[in-house]
C-alpha cells in the first residue's frame, strides 16, 4: 500500500479513537468538551515522558497516558459537572490551553516548544518505514475496534441508558434516584481515558511531540468528525473520522491547485474551510450521517 495512504489511515485511526472518547462525554453524557485536545496531549506527554525518561515499556506508557487523562477528566468533571454547560465549555477550552502552556514552559520536563523527540515506536528499528506504518495501522485500528466494542456495549448497558437520561433531563434522572454527579464524573473519566490513549499512541507513532501539535484546531477536527458521523452514535464516530480525514486531505489537494497563493495562505484556506464545514454541518446536518438510534429521542 502507498505510504501516504497508510499514514492517512493511521491518522484516521487516531481521530476515530478521539471521536469515540468524545462521544462518551458529549454524545452520551451531554457534556460539552471543547478541550479534548488537552486530554489527548496529556496522554501523549505522559507516555512519551515515561518511556523516554524512565524507560518504561511502551504498553505501560500507553496505559499511563490513559490513566493520567482519565484522572484529569474526573477532576474536571467533579468541579464543573454541577454547573451549567456554558461553564463547562469555558473550563474545558481553558484546560487545553493550560496544558499547552505548561508543555511549552516546563522546559526541564517537556523540552518546551522544541518538543520531545526520539520517542520509541514498536519495532521501529527493525522494520522499514513502510513496514512500521503498516504495523501501526494494525495497532491503531485494533485499538479502535477494541474501544468500539467496549464503548458500544457501554452505550447500550444500563450505565449508557442512565447517561442518556441525564443528557436529556438531569432533574428527572435525579428524581428517579440516579446519582447524577457520579455518572457524569465516570463518563468524563472514561471518555478522557480514550482520548489519552489516543494521544499516547500518537506520540509513539510520530516519534516526536511538541506543544503546537495540541492546538484548538484539533478539538474542532474531532467535534467535526463526531458531528458529521452522528453525535451519540459509536459507528458514527468512526465513520466521522474517515469523513474528517477525507476532508483534511481533500482540502490539501484543492489548496494545491489554487494558483498564486503563498503556503501560509494555503494553510489559512484549509483551516478556514474546515472550520466553515463544521458550522455548515451544525446547521444543515446536525444529526450526522448515522443518527443515534434510541426508542425515545427527546428534543430540547
Amino acid at each position, binding site marked *: 500500500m502507498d505510504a501516504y495512504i497508510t499514514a492517512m489511515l493511521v491518522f484516521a485511526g487516531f481521530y476515530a479513537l478521539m471521536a469515540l472518547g468524545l462521544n462518551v462525554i458529549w454524545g452520551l453524557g451531554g457534556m*460539552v468538551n*471543547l478541550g479534548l485536545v488537552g486530554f489527548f496531549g496529556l496522554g501523549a506527554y505522559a507516555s512519551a515522558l515515561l518511556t523516554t525518561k524512565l524507560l518504561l515499556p511502551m504498553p505501560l506508557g500507553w496505559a499511563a497516558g490513559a490513566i493520567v487523562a482519565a484522572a484529569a477528566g474526573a477532576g474536571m468533571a467533579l*468541579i*464543573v459537572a454541577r*454547573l*451549567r*454547560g*456554558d*461553564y463547562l*465549555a*469555558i*473550563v474545558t*477550552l*481553558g*484546560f487545553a*490551553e*493550560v496544558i499547552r*502552556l*505548561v508543555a*511549552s*514552559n516546563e522546559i526541564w520536563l517537556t523540552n518546551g516548544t522544541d518538543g520531545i523527540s526520539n520517542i520509541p515506536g514498536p519495532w521501529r528499528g527493525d522494520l522499514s518505514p513502510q513496514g512500521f506504518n503498516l504495523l501501526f495501522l494494525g495497532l491503531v485500528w485494533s485499538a479502535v475496534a477494541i474501544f468500539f466494542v467496549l464503548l458500544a456495549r457501554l452505550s447500550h448497558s444500563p450505565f449508557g441508558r442512565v447517561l442518556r437520561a441525564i443528557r436529556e433531563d438531569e432533574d428527572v434522572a435525579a428524581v428517579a434516584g440516579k446519582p447524577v454527579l457520579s455518572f457524569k464524573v465516570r463518563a468524563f473519566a472514561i471518555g478522557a481515558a480514550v482520548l489519552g490513549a489516543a494521544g499516547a499512541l500518537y506520540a509513539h507513532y510520530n516519534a516526536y511531540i511538541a506543544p503546537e501539535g495540541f492546538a*484548538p*484546531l484539533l*478539538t*474542532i477536527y474531532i*467535534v*467535526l468528525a463526531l458531528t458529521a458521523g452522528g453525535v451519540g452514535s459509536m459507528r458514527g464516530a468512526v465513520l466521522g473520522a474517515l469523513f474528517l480525514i477525507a476532508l483534511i486531505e481533500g482540502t490539501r489537494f484543492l489548496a494545491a491547485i489554487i494558483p498564486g497563493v*503563498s503556503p*501560509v*495562505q494555503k*494553510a*489559512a*484556506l484549509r*483551516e*478556514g474551510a*474546515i*472550520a*466553515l464545514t*463544521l*458550522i455548515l454541518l*451544525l*446547521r444543515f446536518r*446536525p444529526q450526522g450521517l448515522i443518527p443515534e438510534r434510541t426508542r425515545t429521542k427527546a428534543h*430540547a
Partner: protein
Amino acid sequence: MADWRDLAQIALNGLFAGSMLMLPAIGFTCIFAVLRYPNFAVAGFATVGAFAGWLANAQFGLPAALALLAAFLAAGAIGLLAEELALKPLRPAGPLTVAIASVALTILLENMVRFAFGNDLRGYDLPILRDWRFDGIRVSPQQVENSLYAGAATASLFALLAFTRLGRAMRAVADNPTLADIKGVDPDRIARVTVFIGAGLAGFGGMLIGLDTSIDPLTGFRVVLSVFAAAVVGGLGSIPGAALGAMVVGVGEELAGVVLEPAYRTVTAFLAILLVLMFRPSGLLGARN
C-alpha cells in the same frame, strides 16, 4: 525586596493589563447577558478589530483614537454579519451548539486575517515616548493613554445602558426576554444591537492590546482565557462585574507573573475561573446562576 514601590508597580501594571482585558470581557458578557450563550468568537472579533485599526492607523495614517473607532465599527460589523449568517440559525439547537460554532467561527476569522495579512507581527504607527518616573515607579504614557481609551469606551457603554431608551430595552431583554417581548421590545433588534456592540468592544479591546505590543492573527486568541476569567470572576452576564473582574484578573496575573513565571499569567486566569466556579459560581457581581 517587597518595597511598597514594587507592590505599587505591580498593582499599576495589573490595572493597565486589566483595562486591556476589560472591553473584550464586557463584550463577551454583554452577548451572554442577552443571548445566553458564551460567544467564543470574541477572540476572532478582537483580532479583526486589531487589524482594522492597524489598517486605519499604519496604512491610512489615522491617529490612534480614530483608528480605535474604525476597530470598533469593523469588528462590530463582522460580528453582526457572522451572528446573522452563522450563529443565529443555530440558536434553536441550543446554546451549546452555538458555543461550539463560535469556536469554529473564531478559527475561521483568524484564518481570514491570516490569508489577508500573513503571520508576521505588525506594529502600529505610534510616537515613541519616554516612560514617566514617579519616585521609582515607571509609567508608560502609551499605557495611560490606552487605559483612558478603555475607560472612555466603558463609560460610553454605561451611559448608553443607563440613560437611553435603547439601553433600557437592552437591560430589559437581558433581565427577562419574555417580559420585554410582551412590553413591546423587539428581542431580535436588541440582539442585533447587542452583538454589534459586544463584538465592537472586543475589536476595540483587541486594538488596545495591539497598541501595547504588536498584532498577528492570534492576538485575540492569546488573551481569550484571561477575558473569560474576567467575565466569570465578575459574574457571567454582569457588565460592571466584567469591568471589575478584568481588574482583578489583571492584577492577579501580574502578581502571579512575579511570583511564578510571566508565561504562567494565563494559567492564573484559569485557576481564577476554577476557584470562582467552585466557591462562588455567580461571581463577584453576578446575581443569577
